[in-house]
């Protein structure tokens, strides 16, 4: 299968042309295949957002190459093709909505791409239904909750029908309800429309739901594996300032004390089952 996104030996230096240039990415190699749900975990300043911004040519590599569907992101003529294929959703829902009416905002990208009017209407309605905001199409953004605004931002991106959505901490500013709404939307997109999702986050409970977790620290890729494997490395994660689900942490701690807990405990249910087995055996 051909990779959708691919970073090869990616280096990035901020303010490259100036004296105080600072290298933030070091030889990053990462590829994402169509239909994947990849979570990128790392603390603030680890470089995770910088990697994300390379996938739709907001940033261009200082060294190495980034490909989107095989196209080098440095090719200027392909810029809009790349941006249409890789949609971006950012942290602050307020600062990415342009129009004063929800449906007009969702139409924004399509209008920019020169899509015919009736086609825009169709795609806007479809996108709003996908994120469950169709009933709010005539509302003003400031009347909506954070979670709702973020879903509108997602609708504005999926209306372009991208192959992939890259989300840069889309839930960081939301309350638990908003986080749930957005996460459910992301999963729905990945499962039913097979949209490839790259979710940048520092919430481990979100990363647990991904098919693959990439841990970034100090501009380098530290781990790249399925969640079960990543979250079994409790000490390593803690050392780079990340959390582990309490269930996984308990399993790890018990194992450290010589209790025979099975590997790969991640969820509450798995933890309960393992503990019950232990307590019954006693």
């Amino acid at each position, binding site marked *: 299968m051909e990779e959708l996104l691919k970073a090869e030996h990616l280096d990035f230096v901020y303010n490259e042309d100036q004296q105080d240039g600072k290298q933030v990415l070091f030889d990053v190699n990462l590829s994402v295949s169509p239909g994947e749900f990849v979570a990128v975990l790392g*603390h*603030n*300043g680890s470089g995770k957002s910088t990697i994300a911004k390379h996938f739709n040519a907001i940033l261009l590599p200082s060294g190495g190459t980034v490909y989107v569907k095989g196209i080098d992101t440095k090719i200027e003529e392909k810029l809009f093709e790349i941006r249409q294929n890789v949609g971006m959703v950012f*942290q602050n829902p307020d600062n990415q909505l342009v129009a004063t009416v929800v449906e007009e905002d969702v139409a924004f990208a399509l209008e920019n791409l020169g899509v015919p009017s009736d086609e825009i209407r169709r795609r806007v309605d479809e996108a709003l239904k996908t994120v469950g905001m169709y009933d709010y199409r005539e509302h003003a953004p400031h009347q909506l*909750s954070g979670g709702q605004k973020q879903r509108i931002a997602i609708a504005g991106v999926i209306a372009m029908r991208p192959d992939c959505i890259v989300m840069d901490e889309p839930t*960081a*500013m939301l*309350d*638990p*309800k*908003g986080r749930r709404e957005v996460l459910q939307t992301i999963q729905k997109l990945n499962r039913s429309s097979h949209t490839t999702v790259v979710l940048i986050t*520092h919430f*481990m409970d979100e990363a647990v739901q991904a098919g693959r977790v990439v841990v970034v620290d100090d501009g380098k890729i530290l781990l790249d594996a399925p969640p079960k494997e990543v979250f079994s490395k409790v000490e390593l994660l803690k050392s780079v*300032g*990340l*959390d582990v*689900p*309490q*269930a996984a*942490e*308990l399993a790890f*701690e*018990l194992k450290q*004390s*010589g*209790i025979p807990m099975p590997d790969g405990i991640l969820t*509450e249910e798995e*933890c*309960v089952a393992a*503990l*019950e087995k*232990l*307590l019954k055996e*006693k």
Partner: protein
Amino acid sequence: MPVIKTEHLTHLYSVGTPFEKAAIQDVNLEISQGEFVGVIGHTGSGKSTLIQHFNGLLKPTAGKIFLDGKDIWENKSEIRAVRFHVGLVFQYPEYQLFEETVYKDISFGPKNMGLKEDEIDARVREAAALVGLKPEVLEKSPFELSGGQKRRVAIAGVIAMEPKVLILDEPTAGLDPRGRDMILGEIQQYHQEKKNTILLVSHSMEDIAKYATKVLVMNQAQVYAYDTVEAVFSRVEELRALGLGVPQITRVFYQLKQDGMNIETNVYSVKRAKQLILEKLGKGGDAQ
């Protein structure tokens, strides 16, 4: 005598219009001196409105608020003094910074109190130290600091007023786990050193369980519960029905109990959970 007390506190929005709505309704509450209170509730449950009444930013539609037994609205002209006694740190407080240097920004509150120069100086330095800001940071511009550092400056700006009660509205919103643990750790240390009253609004049940001594649950404009952490988190089913939940580890033990295991359910931290399991397995001695 409680440090903060409310009597039938009610606040209505848009009074006299069809949109009239109670943000808080008949709230009766007594918070004792020295308590570390975790405040939980949905967005729109009334918790933000409630905390803004404690320092007189909002005026009740009905009912009273007492600070050290004194009605804070008894004399309107003294309401500004109430704000010095009840410090409020808003959500994303870094967006309120405005001065050229960190030092000047932290001293804004103490200056407004009309303190003397040397007193202000002492307070700024102490507050900065309490939140883990190094002395050399004081002369920097707040705008060149990292997000976490900016937030510390903002918190120090309120701490420097030496309030009897410190209220923090989601002080860790948007921070990564390391930043969150550091800020909460500093707040805990401040609490232990100063023995002041703290109200911490948070969506994280894990954090509330870790730091608070009491939990205030707001729901639909009213106080749903105000009790010890143990008492509140033992009401697992009710909290779930409110959509608030309990720490994951508590849910694990609650489920074990439900499945007929003979085990306690008042478990809020991994440390306690480990200890309990080891005891049950007869390996209590092994726990470090």
